C-alpha cells in the first residue's frame, strides 16, 4: 500500500518551509502567517501538550478515571482548530482537547468528564463545540444534519457563511454511521468537513484492519474531494482545513481530510501500546514531532529565540499547575443531580423515584451512617 501518497506538507520534519503543495484534489495549498501567528501556533501546541501531560499524570495518580491522550496529534488539532471561524460548529470525539482549547473552552471541562464529575458541561451553543462523543463515529451524522440545517437556513454561499467540522479517527471509518454521513452530506451538499485523524491505531487494531486503501481516497467514491495532509505539520493542517471550510461555506459541499499522524501514547490510559506496536515505530514517528519541527522553523527563521521558548514552557507549566489544583478541589456533584435533566419537562415516574430516594437519604440523617 502506498501509505505516503499525496501527503500535503508545508513544513518538513527538519523545519524547512515548503512554499506550496498540491493536494490529490488538485488544489494548491499555502499559508502566509505573521511572525506573531507562527508564535501563537507554537504556544498552542506546547500548551496543549503540557495540559495533556498533566491530565495523564492526574490519571496515574488516581484523580481521573481514565484519560484519552492527544500526545502526537497536537498539530492536527491546533492546525484545524485555528482554521475555524467563530461561527463554525465542531462535532468532536473524546480526544479533541486541542480543538477544545482553540475554541476557548476552559481546559478543565474534559477533565471533569474523565474524573466523573459530569459528562462534559460546556455549552455547545455558546462555544459552538458539541459534546464529546464516545460512540465511535456517531457525531459525524450529527454534524451532517447540523450542516443540512445551515444550508436550509441559507447560511452558505458567502463569506459570513457557516461550516461544520466533524472529528473522528481511523477506526471510525469502519463504522456504518461514518459512511452514512458521507452519503448524506454528498447527497444534500451539506457544508461539512470530515476531519479524520488517522493516528494509525484503533486501540490495538492497526490501520490495515480498517482499510485496504488510503482513507482520503474513500471520498471519491462518495463524490466529494479527499485530501491527505501531514497531520504533524501544523501549517499544512491549517491550510487544508481552512480551504475545506471555505469550500463548504461557499456551498460546494463536504471534504474529507485525512490527517496522517500518530498517537504517541496509549489509546487511553487503560491500554498498553507495547503489546501491539513495535517500539521502533514510535521512535520513527518521534522524528516527525509536530512541536520540534515548528520550533526548528521558528529558530531558523529567527521568528523566536530561546527566551521565547523558555517563556512558553514556563507559561504552559503554570497553566498545568493551576489546572491540577482545580481538579483536586473539584467537588463531587450532589446525589440528587442524578435525577436532573433526564427530560426537558420532567416525568412523573422520575419525580416519584427522586422523592423516594430523598426520603431514604433523609432517613439516615442524625445516624452514624
Amino acid at each position, binding site marked *: 500500500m502506498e501509505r505516503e501518497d499525496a501527503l500535503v506538507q508545508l513544513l518538513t520534519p527538519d523545519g524547512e518551509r515548503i512554499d506550496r503543495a498540491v493536494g490529490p484534489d488538485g488544489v494548491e495549498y499555502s499559508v502566509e502567517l505573521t511572525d506573531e501567528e507562527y508564535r501563537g501556533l507554537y504556544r498552542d501546541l506546547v500548551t496543549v501538550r503540557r495540559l495533556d501531560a498533566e491530565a495523564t499524570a492526574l490519571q496515574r495518580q488516581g484523580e481521573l478515571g481514565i484519560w484519552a491522550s492527544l500526545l502526537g496529534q497536537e498539530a492536527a488539532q491546533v492546525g484545524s482548530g485555528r482554521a475555524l471561524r467563530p461561527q463554525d460548529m465542531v462535532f468532536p470525539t473524546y480526544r479533541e482537547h486541542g480543538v477544545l482549547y482553540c475554541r476557548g473552552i476552559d481546559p478543565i471541562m474534559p477533565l471533569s468528564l474523565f474524573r466523573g464529575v459530569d459528562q462534559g458541561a460546556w455549552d455547545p451553543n455558546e462555544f459552538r463545540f458539541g459534546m464529546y462523543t464516545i460512540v465511535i463515529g456517531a457525531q459525524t451524522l450529527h454534524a451532517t444534519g447540523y450542516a*443540512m440545517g445551515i444550508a436550509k437556513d441559507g447560511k452558505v454561499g458567502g463569506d459570513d457563511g457557516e461550516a461544520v467540522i466533524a472529528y473522528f479517527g481511523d477506526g471510525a471509518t469502519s463504522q456504518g*454511521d461514518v459512511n452514512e454521513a458521507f452519503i448524506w452530506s454528498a447527497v444534500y451538499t451539506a457544508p461539512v468537513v470530515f476531519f479524520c485523524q488517522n493516528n494509525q491505531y484503533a486501540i490495538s487494531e492497526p490501520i490495515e484492519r480498517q482499510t485496504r486503501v488510503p482513507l482520503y481516497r474513500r471520498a471519491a467514491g462518495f463524490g466529494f474531494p479527499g485530501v491527505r495532509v501531514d497531520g504533524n505539520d501544523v501549517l499544512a493542517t491549517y491550510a487544508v482545513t481552512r480551504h475545506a471550510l471555505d469550500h463548504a461555506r461557499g456551498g460546494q459541499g463536504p471534504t474529507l481530510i485525512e490527517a496522517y499522524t500518530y498517537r504517541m501514547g496509549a489509546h487511553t490510559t487503560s491500554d498498553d501500546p507495547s503489546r501491539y506496536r513495535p517500539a521502533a515505530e514510535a521512535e520513527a514517528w518521534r522524528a516527525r514531532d509536530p512541536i520540534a519541527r515548528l520550533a526548528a522553523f521558528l529558530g531558523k527563521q529567527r521568528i523566536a529565540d530561546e527566551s521565547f521558548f523558555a517563556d512558553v514552557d514556563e507559561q504552559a507549566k503554570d497553566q498545568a499547575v493551576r489546572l491540577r489544583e482545580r481538579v483536586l478541589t473539584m467537588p463531587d456533584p450532589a446525589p440528587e443531580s442524578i435525577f436532573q435533566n433526564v427530560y426537558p419537562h420532567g416525568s412523573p415516574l422520575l419525580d416519584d423515584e427522586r422523592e423516594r430516594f430523598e426520603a431514604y437519604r433523609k432517613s439516615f440523617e442524625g445516624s452514624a451512617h
Partner: protein
Amino acid sequence: MAAEVLTLGKALNAGLRRSLERDAKVVIMGEDVGKLGGVFRITDGLQKDFGEDRVIDTPLAESGIIGTAIGLALRGYRPVCEIQFDGFVYPAYDQIVSQVAKMHYRSRGMVRLPIVIRIPFGGGIGAVEHHSESPEAYFAHTPGLKVVTCSNPSDGYTMIQQAIASDDPIVFLEPKRRYWEKGEVDTEAEAYPLHAARVARPGTDATVVAYGPMVRTALDAATAAAEDGRQLEVIDLRSLSPLDLGPVYESVRRTGRCVVVHEAPSNVGLGAEVAARVTEECFYSLESPVLRVTGFDTPYPAARVEEEYLPDLDRVLDAVDRTYGW
C-alpha cells in the same frame, strides 16, 4: 365543532399537516415520505404542499435518518422521522438510545432534541418478517425517551401534534393494523394530555389494560363480556413512558381484577411493568394476581399463523375468566 370521520391514517396525515403549517421548523424526513407519501401514505401530499425542503426523502439508512435529525434538532429544527417499519428501527437503535435519549442529560439541559420518531408497529396485516414487530419495551426501558401510541383516529390526530410540539424526544408508535379503521375526529376539541391514560370503556367487574392495536381487541372483548353480564373497564394507556397508572390503580381498586394485554412477547415486556406496579399499589384490593395476555416469546411468526400469535378477544376473555378462579 368540526368533527369528521377519518381513518387513523388520514387523521395522522391531517395532524402532520397542521404541525407543518403551525411551525416552519418542523421537517418530516424518512424513506419514501415524499413523492410516494410513505408506504402507508401517512405523509401523502405533504411534500407536494410543503416542498422537498420540509418533507425530505432520505437515503436508505435508518441510523442516518436519526443521526442527521439530531444535527437538525441541534440547529433548531423539529424533525419528525419516519421509520418505515418496526423491524427496521434496529439499525437506528444506537442513535436513538445512545444519542437522542441522552443528550439532554449529558449536557445538563443545555441541549434539547425535540425529535419525533414515528414507527408503524405491530402485526395483523399479513406482512413478511421484520414488518410486524412490537419494539416498545426497548424504548420504554430507555431513560430520556418518551414513548406513546395512539389507538384511534381522534388520538392519532391530536397526539402526533402534541408529540411534535413537545421538547422531549418521543418514539411515536402507530398501530399499523388500525390505519384503515375509521373514527370521529374533532379538530377543534381541547386536547387530552399526551402522557395520560384514558378510560376507553367504563366497567365494574375487571380492568383490562391495553394500548395501541390491542385497545380495539380489548373493547371487542368488553362488548362480548357484556353480553354475558360482565362489565369490563378498558383503559388505553396511550403513554408507555412515562406510564400513567393512576387511572389503572383507581380502576383496579374498584374491580379487584386486572388483565394487561399487548402484542409484544411477555418476557420483560410492558405487561410485567404494569403488573408489578399494580401489585405494589393495589395489593389489598386485588382479588387475584394481575394476568398478562401477550404475544408469545418467539420471533414474530409467519403471516399464515399470526392469528394464533396475536392476542384476540377470546384470549382476553379467558384471562378475565381466570381472574375469577382464585
